[in-house]
């Protein structure tokens, strides 16, 4: 049995030393083959006294198992090495872009509109869309904008030749038309956002385009207040521009809200200390908003003593330009692939 102990002590090194599968088979033959110590000892088991036989037999079995496991382990290693050797002949330059999966890019405007819509969907809002050519009633009158208001001039608004001239069809100048169209069809409570295309008679410059996109928000319910507007916009900005954002409202004027405000958001680039992005003020002016003017609610037949609301409108291009440092609004409409491929 000392022989067996010696064998078990030296076997691992011998097995590991086998340089290839052939040598391993030779070692296996020596350790476990017909003429091996283990095999011969087994054959001589019968000559042992009957009380020793089970003990020795068990030792031999255990030795056989250990040796087999070591050999199989080594064999697996040698097989893998052998296959890798073969595979090296199949080597290629993996940095070669031999094949491409050519995908397209989503436009930044739709990405932005979707992102904003999702923020409000998570607050329980619905998303509504509607016509871009609309009546002056929906774009102006119902929004408390009198016939003499300068925004109705042809220098500001594009009108179209269609239908009854009394309807004064125009290319909507704001998605606020959807406030009116939605409230005409639905009773409160109203929690909607309305993304879409708008038009103004502006010549193209860095920040103005005759075609642009807005997303309008409207909440009308019992006891909706300016505090709700502030909280909602603060949540929107934290979702869109980072959790550290703060907002402030400054008094402003819009015909369809009273009180009206301009929302400024603390600069995401400098965190309010002043930089190029925010024009050194620490704040970025981003959107117009306010408490819905009672005339607007009355125009759609809502009971203003019971319901109040807030509304805001924000330009999709403006949001994207601020966040991504885009210097000219034309980049949204040239469809230059060198620009589109940045819209990741």
């Amino acid at each position, binding site marked *: 049995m000392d022989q067996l102990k010696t064998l078990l002590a030296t076997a691992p090194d011998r097995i590991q030393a086998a340089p290839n599968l052939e040598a391993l088979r030779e070692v296996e033959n020596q350790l476990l083959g017909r003429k091996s110590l283990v095999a011969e000892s087994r054959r001589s088991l019968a000559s042992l006294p009957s009380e020793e036989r089970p003990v020795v037999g068990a030792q031999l079995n255990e030795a056989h198992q250990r040796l087999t496991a070591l050999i199989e382990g080594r064999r697996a290693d040698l097989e893998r090495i052998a296959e890798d050797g073969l595979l090296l002949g199949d080597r290629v330059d993996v940095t070669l*872009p031999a094949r491409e999966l050519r995908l*397209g890019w989503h436009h930044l405007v739709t990405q932005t509109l979707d992102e904003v819509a999702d923020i409000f969907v998570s607050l329980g809002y619905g998303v509504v869309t509607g016509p*871009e050519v609309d009546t002056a009633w929906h774009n102006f009158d119902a929004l408390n904008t009198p016939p003499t208001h300068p925004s109705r001039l042809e220098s500001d608004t*594009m009108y179209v030749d269609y239908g009854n001239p009394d309807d004064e069809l125009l290319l909507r100048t704001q998605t606020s038309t959807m406030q009116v169209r939605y409230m005409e069809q639905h009773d409160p409570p109203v929690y909607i956002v309305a993304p879409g295309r708008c038009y103004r008679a502006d010549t193209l410059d860095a920040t103005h385009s005759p075609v642009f996109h807005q997303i309008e928000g409207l909440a009308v319910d019992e006891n909706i*207040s300016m*505090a709700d507007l502030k909280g909602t916009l603060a949540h929107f900005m934290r979702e869109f521009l980072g959790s550290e954002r703060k907002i402030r*409202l400054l008094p402003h004027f819009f015909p369809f809200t009273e*009180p009206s405000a301009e929302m400024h958001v603390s600069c995401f680039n400098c965190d309010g200390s002043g930089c190029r992005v925010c024009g050194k003020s620490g704040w970025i002016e981003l959107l117009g908003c306010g*408490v819905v003017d009672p005339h607007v609610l009355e125009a759609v037949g809502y009971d203003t003593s019971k319901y109040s609301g807030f509304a805001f409108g924000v330009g999709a291009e403006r949001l994207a330009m601020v966040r991504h440092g885009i210097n000219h609004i034309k980049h949204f409409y040239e469809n230059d*692939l060198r620009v589109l491929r940045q819209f990741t």
Partner: protein
Amino acid sequence: MKVSVRWLRDYVDVPTEDPDELAEVFSSLGHEVEGYEVLDLQFSGVIVGRVEEVSPHPNADKLRLCRVTTGGDPQDIVCGAWNFEAGAIVPVSVPGAVLAGGLEVGVRALRGIESHGMICSAAELGLGDDHSGIMVLDPEVEVGTKFAELVPLPDVVFDLSITPNRPDAMSMLGIARDLGAYYRLPVRIPAGSLIEVEPESRVKVTLEDPHGCPRYVGREVKDVKVAASPLWMQLRLRSAGIRPINNIVDITNYVLLETGQPLHGFDLDHVAGEEIIVRRAEPGETLRTLDGVDRELSVWDLVITDASGVVAFAGVMGGETSEVSDGTTRVLIEAAHFDPPSVMFTAKRHDLRTEASSRFERGVDPNLPGRAAERAAALMVELAGGRAVAGVQDNYPEVIEPWPVELDLKEIPRLLGIELDREVVIDLLSLIGFESTGQNPLVVTVPTFRPDVRRPADLVEEVARIHGYDKIPETLPVGPGGGLTEAQLTERRLRGLMTGLGFSEAQNWSFVGTEDLENLGLSADDLRRRGIAVRNPLRDLEPLLRTTLLAGLLKSVRFNASHGADRLALFEIGKVFLAEPSPIDARIPNQPDRLAFVAVGEFGSPQVKGGHSIADVYTATATWRALVETLGIPDAVLRQGSPAGFHPGRAADVLVGGTIVGSVGELHPAVVRSFGLEGRVAAGELALEPLVASRSWWVFQEPSTYPPVVFDLAFDLDATVPSRALVELVTESAGEWLESVRVFDEFTGPSLGEGRKSIAVQVWFRAPDHTLTNEEVAPHRDRIVNRVEDSLDAHLRGGT
């Protein structure tokens, strides 16, 4: 509006020197700060002098030679300005002086004459932008005074953007009133004591249109001496962006800036009959305005006339005939109230925006004219040596009184989300001149300078503004949970699919030109050829609303090709505008959403090693099939067709539920050429609605665990038979175990004969409950072959 802080201090003790702090205050009051400028002295060594003598420069026509004294002996100074004569009091930079911009003044020869310094313009002294002439000072200023001592600097001038609802804030006093409210400080309103002289003025005023002009105050001042106004007034006007003219005109402008009441000064000796009539113009009347332009008047123009005719546009601009000039001695001060729409109409029609019209358009306090005219008269007495004539004309047939507005105090928490005590509300409103009585509702008396405040909501806004928007808390209401509709979700999947297929999303403006629609090969009776016109299109903008997205996409492809891009694949989702009633509102045109795509050149996955595919009709049809399969569009069919603008042999109509929803294929080569492109162009344009329409839920089908029987069939058949017909027939004839039919080969050639082609399909059979044997399938295979041979005049060429 430009606001000088130093000037503002005449009316309110602004308690800060810090312009940034003041900017915050203005913003919080609703007066957006466009910017501010810190002004300080930019010159040294400038002395007040008198021009003793002016003579021509011997060597230069454009220059003059002046003898100027600054207290000592007169010196020669060469000057290029012509807006003064001998006797003028002027700022002189003597040798050694330094001007704005750093120029050091010395003795220097100008065209052969030595000039001992310069007579300075406002721009040279850093006191304005005006280069047009030198500064002419008030004759009372003592010669030899250091000019710097006369200049009220340093100062800060804010540029405020006043919202259209606040006409009252378009004045120094209006801004002072808001600052006073913010800081809780009193506001001082200048009140000169006016001593009038007899006899009474003979001026007669008649209001023929009291709607257009509810009030007209005419006040006469005689014996004025027209000259330069005092330096402080000139500089204040300059700070507001108004060029000083003479003391009389400057005073009317100064009072306008101070009070917000536009004034006009007439030379009363040139007002025929000393009579003023306010009326609408008559056909054929004309007026030469102060800017020297002859205007043809409309019967809607509200005008000021005298006995001889029109002398001014009411509230917009005066006329030349009655202009105040150097020789004027009698002035008629006009301080009136004009109807905003009338002024807006005239200003717009004649393209005349003035300080006066911009205020009248918004609505000036009707109770201001009397005070403003008196203030102007007092200044003319004080600064121009005039004498105010008794007998002011004040035509004000219907006095406009302050009006009451009731405010239920519960509106404050309901609309603002804050609780304010009654006393606090009353106090906040009193700070801006609103008096309140009553318990609840409060009865608030709104002063006539706030025409914008008519309703409780308007009062709530004022309470919020003066209290501070920043004191309103943030609360977050949550809606009932609308979410995205199925169509909205499907549209997003569709966009994801298109980008996954290699198309990039484009956004084109919604306009096309007539020639674009012609170039697209649309026939004259096609609705898409009848684009709706924009009545007032912008220059450089196509004049029609788009009826198809393809024109825009093709132009975008061209734009990219011109920048050397290849592998162009774009899609767009957007509205087209069709001249037919919209299903949602018959007053407006139909504006359906469309999906369109265009691909040119290599398409799909390019390979460095190996081939590539070029976009063609099959790229377009494959795109359609991908949409159908991925979005699960039911009952979708692709049918050989010849849609307008497409290649007659390489295009298809696509149908959903039996209705054509669009076209896919290759564009007609003529269309391709007309958009400046070449080669094959794969394209499609589809109605979006049927693609994203909600549909019934699909039902699960258990995949079989048994192996299939697969066989191929190649048929020789007439070349005109579409492969779709073959696939449909095979499907129909195959029986219950059919799993799929797939076309895997198509060819024509001499071996088949003229007008014949071969199509091979692979057919998979599989049973849900057992392993099919060839013997079981054989009868089905035979039935397929027989039906195809019988119905399609086909022969089985081979099979497995």
